[in-house]
């Protein structure tokens, strides 16, 4: 099962290394990882996508909790939540492909954010599934580069993960 863990972490050097090290040492996998400071600069938020059965996920959350710098954490996938990932795709576009690529981007509510004589750079935001569907939809177009931010998530409704 895929889980999205949201972690509030002391914004100290070495804290991130400890989280990543934990996954490596104990053989847990990381599908994606994003981290940045929150509105409180002493706290970082880390969003981590991992996979495992219930027992593995339970161990992961317990082991994360044990790290001294981890302040709070939640498994967003346990309740209603919103998940977003940002992707930028640079594609090669011949004159006759341009219309088609533009239409495809529109369908996925993507935006063309840069343009050259031979390329389009498209930004798409959504769930990881949606981003993958977009890549599928581009078939026939030559992808030069994709850049993905990794997943961020937040609970729906009034539930929050904050201090």
């Amino acid at each position: 099962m895929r889980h999205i863990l949201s972690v509030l972490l002391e914004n100290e050097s070495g804290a991130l290394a400890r989280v990543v090290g934990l996954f490596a040492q104990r053989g847990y996998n990381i599908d994606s990882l994003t981290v940045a400071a929150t509105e409180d600069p002493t706290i970082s938020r880390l969003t981590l996508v991992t996979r495992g059965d219930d027992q593995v996920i339970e161990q992961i959350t317990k082991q994360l909790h044990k790290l001294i710098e981890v302040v709070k954490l939640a498994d967003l996938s346990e309740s209603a939540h919103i998940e977003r990932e940002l992707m930028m795709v640079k594609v090669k576009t011949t004159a006759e492909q341009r219309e088609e690529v533009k239409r495809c981007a529109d369908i996925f509510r993507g935006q063309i954010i840069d343009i050259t004589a031979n390329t389009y750079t498209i930004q798409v935001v959504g769930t990881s599934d949606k981003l993958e569907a977009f890549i599928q939809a581009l078939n026939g177009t030559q992808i030069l580069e994709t850049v993905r931010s990794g997943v961020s998530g937040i609970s729906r409704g009034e539930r929050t993960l904050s201090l």
Partner: protein
Amino acid sequence: MTSQNTQPELLSGGAMLIRALADEGVEYVYGYPGGAVLHIYDAMFQQHQVKHVLVRHEQAATHMADAYARASGKAGVVLVTSGPGATNAVTGIATAYMDSIPMVVICGQVMSHLIGDDAFQETDMLGISRPIVKHNMSVRRPEDIPYLVKKAFYIAQSGRPGPVVLDIPKDMTIPSQKFPYEYPKDIKLRSYNPNAKGHPGQIKKALTTLLAAKKPVLYAGGGVILGQASEELTVLARKLNVPVTNTLMGLGAYPASDPQFIGMLGMHGSYEANQVMHNADVIFAVGARFDDRVTNATKKFCPNATIIHIDIDPASISKTINAHIPIVGLVKPVLQEMLHQLEKNKSELDKDALGQWWQQIKQWREVHGGRYDQSPSHLKPQAVIEAVHRHTKGDAYVTSDVGQHQMFAAQYYKFDKPNRWINSGGLGTMGFGLPAAMGVKLHYPDAEVVCVTGEGSIQMNIQELSTCKQYGLGVKIINLNNGYLGMVKQWQDMNYDSRYSSSYMDSLPDFVKLAEAYGHVGIRVTKAEELEPALERAFALKDKLVFLDIHVDPTEHVYPMQIPGGAMNEMFLSKTERT
């Protein structure tokens, strides 16, 4: 009194470090100097509150600090230089980590501006130690030193204890740069709240389950010793009249001479302890972690048992074996609450069922009962441990190394008190025994301290005989010399048709002469009749270090031994018998 004359004193980073240790109540620091810690050593020299013990290898410093912690319950302190000093300490840090021992390790580091340049004696000690510490930190500003020392002790000693590394770049301790010194009284971290009392509802549920049991067992581990809860455990067990088994780390948590004690459990546990576990209907695990050396194959583990598990570390609960009634909390308050509830309800277990259970246990006790073969030609290691127990009236601190001798000590020295059995259970570190004995002896000079070792293990830190001379540490070394890396040989006998690939120790030193060369007393024992007089003499030489080189049966194996891949109660009972 006005507050005007309480201006904080101005101290250098190095002096603040030492003063903070003194304010923390530290009496001894074990260490070894070098470039990055010279300022600190100079500050040490200029005061007399904190004493320094100079070892001969940094690994020994960590084991001394570790063993002091195991005996006293307080964090031991290590001071080493950067680079090789720090890396030499790694094995000792890992040893403490695996057994949850509180320790503060202060490592020198190159100057801040050189970090990352591959400077002379630079190693990334934060990176190296990260997987083997409870926490590590580096000093960025000298004025933070008192706070960071306080934080290091707080983290090391609270909750599930463990080692903390404090990395100090040399420019944080410059003698001419002084700062106001104040040692924090206490500390609170928003991200760390370790002291749980246990959920009252869960405790009640646990007690109800335990009281309904027909075949209960109390399985107590090192957490009872670390949590100083032996007394509560003993009272509870006696009130309920349930059998008690201790793990290797928990020996002494429940008195071995008590009739309710059924011995150690696990790989080399007693026949009865492993049978009781396997057949139990309720297992009450207290401060134990279902280690693989206890459970044998987890799939076959105790099929009929409801498991109650108290541990301060939630990650230890349901990690390998699912707990039906988990209680996250410090062992002591949880057991106190249980006793309190028991007192109120005045309930007890079903007398008939319990009587039958004890009847069954009595039969199991007769099956093996710790017997071992006698040999006309050789001293038996088990007999040596029994004799040491007699000569020390069962009241010594016993440290050990790793191997067959360790298991014989665990099985045959009947520990009646906690904190007396000091061994590297989790990491299994050969070389632990002698420095560990030294750490205990230094703090308890009047106590009898015995190191049970093997001719392989003792050579891993034999240089410490020199430290013993310098500080007059009169420990007694019981070298169970079988001429083999005996535990390796045992596995080779059992699994590799006795092909002794590198398990034979050729060219052993003359340990008697070696001990004498270091200024100690050496006694060799090769025959059974020499043992008693040798022990007599050794223990009469109160303040002397005596190295007893005792030649024991080289063919002996440790039994019982769980059959790999089997259930808890599947065991070899001797070279020719199995369950």
